[in-house]
């Protein structure tokens, strides 16, 4: 979007490279192409979810239900596959996208039509969707033996050294990049989050845009439901528990403003990769998983501080311009009314 953002993405990319270099100093082989492909593949699901989350965050909302959506949809397609092994895989993937999109649409409708704050609406559906997964499965697992080989193995099939799972992520990144940069919907996301009032006056339907962002996030979560189940070869109610926070973290680290309107595909992908590198590297150099969590948390706070400082600096600049331009308004200013 702007030079600052490009600079920030380069910075994040640089940090990731330095991390990889540092880790491979302690653990040779960490930076081998195979290992790197492995990290990318391992982070694929997080990247896809982070892109959906980013679309939602751009509109000043948040989707806390992505992991629950993933769990329900994953369970649903796994059970479908177990019950009707004859259903071809592409149809199952379409079903995953559709179920996920429907769950996302429920979030979107609550935010758009009823006006429930996104954080509350999706906090509710987070619990509901998990509950639905439980009701659907009766708490039972769907095991490797119940699922068809095609269902389980397709995402793991390597093409040019990278499993199809990784290629799926690349495809999603490309599609989302085009949607955000080259379609009216993508532009509307930035406009609706950047200045909802200006967007409204320019004929952008802010509510509908938010709705479609939720639907997009839901569809991607549904896709990830299938990917997750096939990757770990098991479906149960608690898969990906707490993963929604990782998607938000990836966005925040990637410089997507929680105030809406600022962010890029590159940022979200790099934010997810950053978390992926840390997660894969720390066990290699024998650091306990609890440290992993602490380090991830620290990085998130640093990233937020970094973002807040950037935004504040920008705010000051505008105010200075404003002060030069015109007197303070005579009436009592209404602070934050644009929010």
């Amino acid at each position, binding site marked *: *979007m*702007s*030079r600052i953002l490009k600079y920030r993405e380069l910075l994040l990319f640089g940090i990731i490279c330095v991390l990889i270099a540092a880790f491979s100093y302690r653990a040779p082989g960490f930076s081998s192409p195979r290992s790197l492909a492995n990290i990318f593949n391992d982070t694929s699901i997080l990247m896809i979810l982070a892109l959906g989350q980013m679309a939602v965050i751009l509109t000043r909302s948040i989707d806390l239900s992505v992991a629950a959506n993933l769990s329900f949809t994953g369970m649903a397609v796994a059970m479908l596959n177990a019950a009707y092994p004859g259903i071809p895989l592409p149809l199952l993937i379409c079903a995953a996208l559709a179920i996920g999109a429907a769950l996302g649409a429920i979030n979107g409708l609550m935010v758009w039509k009823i006006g429930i704050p996104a954080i509350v609406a999706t906090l509710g559906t987070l619990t509901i969707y998990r509950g639905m997964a439980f009701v659907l499965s009766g708490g039972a697992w769907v095991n490797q033996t119940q699922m068809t080989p095609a269902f389980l193995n397709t995402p793991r099939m390597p093409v040019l050294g990278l499993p199809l799972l990784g290629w799926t992520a690349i495809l999603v990144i490309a599609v989302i990049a*085009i949607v955000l*940069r*080259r*379609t*009216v919907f993508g*532009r509307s996301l*930035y*406009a609706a989050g*950047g*200045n909802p*009032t*200006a*967007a*409204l*006056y*320019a*004929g*952008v*339907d802010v509510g509908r845009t938010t709705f479609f962002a939720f639907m997009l996030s839901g569809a991607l979560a549904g896709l990830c439901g299938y990917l997750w189940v096939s990757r770990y070869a098991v479906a149960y109610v608690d898969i990906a528990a707490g993963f929604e926070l990782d998607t938000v973290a990836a966005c925040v680290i990637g410089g997507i403003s929680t105030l809406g*309107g*600022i962010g890029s595909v590159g940022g979200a992908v790099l934010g997810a990769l950053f978390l992926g590198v840390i997660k894969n590297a720390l066990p290699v150099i024998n650091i306990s998983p609890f440290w992993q969590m602490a380090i991830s948390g620290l990085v998130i706070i640093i990233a937020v501080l970094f973002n807040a400082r950037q935004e504040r600096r*920008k705010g000051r*600049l*505008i105010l200075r*311009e*404003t*002060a*030069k*331009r*015109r*007197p*303070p*308004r*005579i*009436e*009592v200013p209404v602070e934050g*009314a*644009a929010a």
Partner: protein
Amino acid sequence: MSVVQALTQNSAPLLEMRGISRSFPGVKALDGVDVALYPGTVTALIGENGAGKSTLVKILTGIYQPDGGQIVVEGEPVQFTSAEAAIRSGITAIHQETVLFDELSVAENIFLGHAPRNRWGLVNWAAMNARAAALLTSIDAPISPYSRLKDLSIAQRHLVAIARALSVEARVVIMDEPTAALSYKEVEDLFRIIERLKRQGKAILFISHKFEEVYAIAERFVVFRDGRSIGAGLLAQTSQDEIVRMMVGRSVDHVFPKAAVTIGETVLKVSGYSHPTEFDGISFALRRGEILGLYGLVGAGRSEFCQSLFGITRPSTGRLELEGRSIEIRSPSDAIRAGIVYVPEERGRHGAVLQMPIFQNFSMATLGRTTRAGFLRQAEEFALARRYAERLDLRAAALSVPVGTLSGGNQQKVVIGKWLATRPKVIILDEPTKGIDIGSKAAVHAFMSELAGEGLSVIMVSSELPEILGMSDRVMVMREGRVAGIWNREGLDAETLVRAATGNE
């Protein structure tokens, strides 16, 4: 001044402001004003929007510091360096829209920030509730101090606000348009309270647009115009006409000449536009190349009506015809497609998406035109942006930098360019020159003439009489949501408009 001098001999003013000035970058909001407030007396402060009334209130309540002049309380010069300092001197204000807290009790609202404490430094609830009850009784307000504020009516909230103002040992009470949200009956109740405050010897500054009320409750008046105190005296010795004349001044003609434009056929016809709460029965016709000035007091329903033309609010009844065809507008995108655009008042806040590049702001209202098969075409977006950047003489390093990096004037150009890019037939400008300096005003006015010359029809909402009189071909005045009259520019004077807007005919 002789009247004031004569009066000051009767009783000494409780509070005097002498030669108070206050500038903001580019504007002198107050230029050496004199105001005197007397104990047991209501002084009405009268003036157009932007005359400096609110700035004066803010100086009196310590929110702004004056650049020059002196404030004297009972003969002692004082300086209000903070809102607290003003309160300590016994000056308190009741604002137009009082800030109260819905979830707190009445007593808590009254004493928020200065609650009585017990010896442990904790809130002394018993004392607070008792004092709140006493205060409410003193203004005849039958409200329990224990009620939640959210359960009260607007009028009752107002009484709480008054009690809050009086809870600080007030000697000077400022009421900034206190009747704006009140019904006739509630205004009467308010007046009874004011009478009571008068008897207690408090000095009251009463700000209102409504002459009827001013004459009913106030003894004295001060008229402000363009940041100056133009006249002061006793209302009993001054007619409404004289006050109107002081408000508008005389030399308002030909400050903002609109270029002569041939007025064409009717473009937009509005019939019986009504809204359940904001406006009622608005009808008029707008012709090609015409500028229709829309004048009225703040809260007369002008912006609300214009927003309904643009699809932001929906009218309950009424018909709209554009170029002879009946149209219905349900959303801003409907309006833009039909050729009606609305440039909002606060262009900084409502106009541009500051973090977006310039070219994307230019194309924001016309995305349909720069799209092929659902995909945006950046080359066309840039071409469109270049065209309007050139036409509006936009100064920017590149069209790909965020609008937030531009100067204020250039941001405005982007916002206006965005609307011109939609090739509208009717453009609604809401307070197009509010808060901008004289030079930029002239540029905006020249630009409006140019638009009219190209055959656009313009609706200009403005609260500035010189602008209305200078720029409009016709003027429509709204009062309390209704059309108070439509006049041609020829022979129209400011006093007619002020009378129509204030209901003093």
